[in-house]
């Protein structure tokens, strides 16, 4: 192989790496936010991101240019998380996530009573952030990802259905149920905050 040939062959690889790096940097904040909201803590989020990026880097040849890089990575990160989550929890209920969940929605009422008593406005803001995270952690990973992708990352139902590899109808019902479950935890906070401000 001549030098010219080897350069010609090497160039696309370095171009690919440069492209990958620039795409990561473009979506850096969104990716971190997604992993953090999914895991609930920085340490786990960073481990998840590192492994997710590594998998993406290795299979970047499969990435189709023109498709959304952030959604492709959301999918990799979500799948990694689900895999890890299932190994850790080994809950049989994961198979029936789209079944009616009335019992879950009624169970949550016990926890919310005490949180409305905090009158301090500043403390409430950070506590609301904590409460959002706590609420998200109450959701099963599939619901959590759907809600995060919709409300925090701003994706459409169709985009979410591609990430989660499910129908738009499933996305719609996961988001709707997820929000209703979050409401039980967050609404007292939101109302308290509204009352304190107005």
């Amino acid at each position, binding site marked *: 192989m001549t030098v010219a040939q080897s350069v010609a062959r090497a160039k696309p690889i370095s171009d690919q790496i440069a492209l990958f*790096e620039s795409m*990561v*940097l473009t979506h*850096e*904040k969104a*990716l*971190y*936010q997604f992993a*953090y909201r999914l895991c609930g803590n*920085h340490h786990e989020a*960073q481990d998840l*991101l*590192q*492994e997710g*990026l*590594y998998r993406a*880097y290795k299979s970047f040849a499969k990435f189709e240019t023109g498709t959304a890089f952030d959604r492709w990575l959301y999918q990799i990160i979500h799948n990694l998380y689900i895999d890890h989550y299932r190994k850790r929890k080994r809950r049989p209920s994961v198979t029936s996530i789209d079944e009616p969940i009335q019992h879950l929605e009624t169970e949550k009422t016990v926890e919310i009573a005490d949180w409305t008593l905090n009158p301090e406005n500043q403390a409430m*803001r950070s506590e*609301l*952030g904590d409460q*959002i995270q706590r609420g998200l952690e109450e959701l099963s990973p599939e619901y959590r990802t759907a*809600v995060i992708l*919709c*409300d*925090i990352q*701003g994706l*459409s*139902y169709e985009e979410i259905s591609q990430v989660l590899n499910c129908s738009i109808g499933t996305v*719609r019902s996961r*988001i*709707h149920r997820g*929000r*209703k479950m*979050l*409401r039980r935890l*967050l*609404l007292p906070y*939101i109302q308290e905050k509204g009352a304190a401000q107005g």
Partner: protein
Amino acid sequence: MNCLTVRNLISAYIDCELDPEQKREFRNHLFHCPECNEEYEQLMSIKNCLENSCQEPVDFNLLEALYARIEEEKLAINPQTDGFYWGSRILMTAACLTAFFLTTFMLFPMKQKSTAQTNLSFSSPGIMMDQNITIDQPVNVYQASWVLP
């Protein structure tokens, strides 16, 4: 549209995922139904709350983490690239050999001693092996293998 249908569509309405006809009917219902309207307001406030949740500060370099991971993988696949690898290999081999010789020496302490015993046992050609055993000598199988041809 009845209340049940409307309530199932609230999130989709909030996320602008209804077609124009559904949207029109939905708005019409909310205008006349305070219960559904309240439900809508509540879910809307949840979405707003999540949308406005403060961004966590990022003090984490994604590319650095990625390349650290790639290095980790390289070391796992090609450990000989590490200079310490062969050094530790040689040391380990030396340690194993030393241990082997030391154990051998301790298990078979002195050849002189066993030959002395042999001399003692066979000093008199009239004494037979079975007589030796009756003297109540402690029997070591390794020593025995040395003694016997």
